[in-house]
């Protein structure tokens, strides 16, 4: 029920297209999406492979909720080894590719090997073909989608890369439906290294569930009483830009390369400035919220900008010009690049230039040069050649490591840990590097009632968040529906036709989290890597509620020690055999 029990495996080196049964016992432990993708990748890859080689795999995984009426279930998990960090990388992309893959008859698509020349993959139910993509290579994502819709129909859903992925930029992304991305860690470059320009999918088969009447009842009630509520409606009413004022008011809004947490121009790029443009809301498949803001800023049309872009490519660059940010966003969407990483890289370049440590030719607030950057970086032209290496590598070459705001090679996103200490732990221990999607304790601290400037209880807070997201992103549900584990349990039991108690889901979440950790341990990551840039430990914030604050190193170390203890990991951050046994791994 719900599962297809079918994996589509495509090898681009040999050109083979094969179907194989989905591993049933793994689905019982890992369900789908993030967890199942991690399990397959862990088992199929050896440690130490080059992420941009034929040895890497791209695993596109749906979950048991995909293709059903469970609200907010339309996302796809793509798992691979990251070229930016060398760690396991899973990205979540919205739109409707995942449901199409399920309707076409597959739970998962595994892409192996490397094509000799540019190709694209088409999936039309049973008909799966590898096509020549030479007519698409070098095109932006928008034109690629348009072209593929002409060739395969408007009903087909496209995942594709742009020039940034083709050029193996460290922070290239995969795009879909123009404005949705699998954004971080250079996932687009894995696709580019395989010379896979796009995957097009159309599906027309039924998705069934065990107890349809009960699921319809549960889902209808959930939409009314649990999704369209105060807790989640911010996503529909304003979307992520509502976080701009929240961050700015609590002093955690990354400003001018994390030099401060309050940005004078915040009012020009907040939710109001976007609401004035009367966006047409856009939802992913089966989502009752619809967080996308499709709008026009002067001559720029884009679905966005999202909070992270307004933060990293706005305040962090000293830019408060909404049209400029929208243009930057649209260009990155077309070129196929992560706005978080690029915004962060530019912030670093601006600070280095202003300090006189290295002239990258760009300063804070220099909108004209800023707008040239996406193309320069995607094509490695001029200063873009250096900037495309990412902030960690730039600091290695030119200095400035103390304020190269990254963890393990992934540029930090939009929340300053000096104003939310648990967020610092979350960044340091996230499975894919400096990431805000593993756990988001800023909601409880900066945006809530918990004291942000103490480590008490914070390790547990982060762990609970990480386990919760781990199972949530395996069933596949979207981050923006803050549902309880009990609700997840009710729904998954009804879909699968077997009891999956909340305790099972909690354990599965912990299991997925430990598996992600095991992958990284196998790649050689240890306690010393679970750290933060020196700026966080040493440079006090200047403004707002956290003025004068740092996250003191000793406090961070204490928090990290407690974190490992509570996780059941040793002092090197490695899951112990007892813990793995307990989790039936």
């Amino acid at each position, binding site marked *: 029920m719900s599962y297809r029990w079918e994996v589509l495996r495509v090898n681009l080196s040999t050109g083979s297209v094969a179907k194989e049964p989905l591993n049933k016992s793994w689905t019982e432990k890992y369900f789908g999406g993030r967890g199942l993708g991690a399990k397959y990748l862990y088992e199929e890859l050896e440690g130490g492979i080059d992420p941009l080689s034929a040895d890497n795999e791209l695993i596109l995984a749906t979950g048991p909720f995909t*293709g059903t*009426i469970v609200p907010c279930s339309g996302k796809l998990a793509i798992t691979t080894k990251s070229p930016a960090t060398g760690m396991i990388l899973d990205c979540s992309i919205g739109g409707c590719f995942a449901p199409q893959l399920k309707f076409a008859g597959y739970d998962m698509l595994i892409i192996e090997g490397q094509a000799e020349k540019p190709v694209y993959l088409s999936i039309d139910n049973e008909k799966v073909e590898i096509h020549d993509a030479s007519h698409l290579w070098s095109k932006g994502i928008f034109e690629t989608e348009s072209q593929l819709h002409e060739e395969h129909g408007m009903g087909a859903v496209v995942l594709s890369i742009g020039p940034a992925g083709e050029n193996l930029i460290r922070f290239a992304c995969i795009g879909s*439906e123009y404005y949705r991305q699998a954004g971080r860690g250079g996932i687009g470059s894995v696709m580019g290294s395989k010379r896979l320009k796009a995957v097009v999918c159309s599906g027309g088969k039924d998705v069934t569930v065990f107890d*349809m009447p009960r699921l319809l009842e549960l889902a*209808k009630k959930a939409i009314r009483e649990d999704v369209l509520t105060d807790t989640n409606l911010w996503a529909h009413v304003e979307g992520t830009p509502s976080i701009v004022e929240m961050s700015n008011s609590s002093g955690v809004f990354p400003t001018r390369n994390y030099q401060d947490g309050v940005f004078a121009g915040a009012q020009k790029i907040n939710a109001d400035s976007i609401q004035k443009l009367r966006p047409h809301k*856009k939802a992913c498949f*089966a989502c*009752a919220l619809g967080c996308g803001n499709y709008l026009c800023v002067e001559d720029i*049309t884009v679905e966005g900008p999202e909070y992270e872009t307004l933060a990293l490519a706005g305040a962090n660059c000293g830019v408060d010009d909404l049209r400029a940010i929208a243009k930057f966003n649209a260009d990155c969407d077309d070129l196929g690049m992560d706005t978080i990483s690029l915004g962060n890289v530019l912030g670093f370049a601006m600070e280095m230039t202003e300090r006189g440590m290295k002239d990258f030719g760009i300063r804070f607030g220099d909108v004209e040069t800023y707008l040239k950057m996406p193309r320069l970086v995607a094509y490695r032209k001029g200063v873009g050649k250096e900037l495309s290496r990412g902030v960690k590598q730039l600091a290695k070459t030119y200095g400035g490591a103390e304020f190269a705001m990254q963890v393990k090679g992934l540029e930090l996103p939009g929340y300053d840990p000096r104003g939310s200490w648990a967020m610092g732990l979350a960044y340091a221990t996230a499975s894919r590097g400096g990431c805000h999607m593993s756990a988001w304790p800023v909601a409880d601290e900066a945006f809530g009632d918990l004291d942000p400037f103490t480590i008490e209880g914070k390790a547990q807070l982060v762990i609970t968040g990480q386990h919760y997201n781990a199972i949530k992103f395996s069933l596949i549900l979207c981050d923006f529906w803050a549902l309880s584990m009990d609700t997840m349990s009710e729904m998954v039991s009804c879909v699968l036709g077997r009891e999956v108690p909340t305790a099972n889901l909690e354990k599965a979440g912990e299991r997925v989290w430990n598996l992600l950790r095991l992958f990284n341990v196998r790649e050689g990551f240890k306690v010393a890597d679970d750290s933060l840039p020196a700026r966080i430990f040493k440079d006090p914030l200047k403004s707002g509620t956290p003025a004068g604050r740092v996250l003191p190193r000793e406090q961070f170390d204490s928090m990290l020690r407690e974190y490992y203890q509570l996780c059941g990991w040793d002092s090197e951050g490695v899951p112990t055999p007892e813990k793995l046994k307990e989790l039936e791994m």
Partner: protein
Amino acid sequence: MKHKVGVDINNKQKDRAVAVMLSREGGGNMKLILDSEKCTGCKLCELACSAKHQGVFNPKKAHLKIIDQYTETGRETRLKSCTLCLKCVETCPVEAITFNGKWLVIDDGLCTGCGDCVDVCPEGVVFLNSEGTAAIPNFCEGNPYCVEWCPHEAIHKEEDVA
């Protein structure tokens, strides 16, 4: 030489057209309306429809289609649903589909699964179900399920009363 005027209409077709005209005069004209500004393109309506009527989740087996897509020129959001054009009624070779004045009705016993109605529907909202007979939209007999499910009240039914 006498020139032919108009087209040849046989008696059966003549009877059919008269029956359609009479039944139209008797009843209302139900339709679904989409507020394209409120519609987010979530497709919950399509899922609800296929779930209710076919017991499965499959947008291709829904009696409405939300087109919500980006093109290079912008975004298009519109609805395809039964407009009571009655082409399926006129086309059915065994007269299995009738119009009761408000919505379409199919006699499953008569339906041969020929698929002519599927091909002729200009909205693309008629299809063959798992039993091989035609699945015909009927506005859920007056209480459209899609209207109930839409989270943003973007879709509603309208009824002209004759």
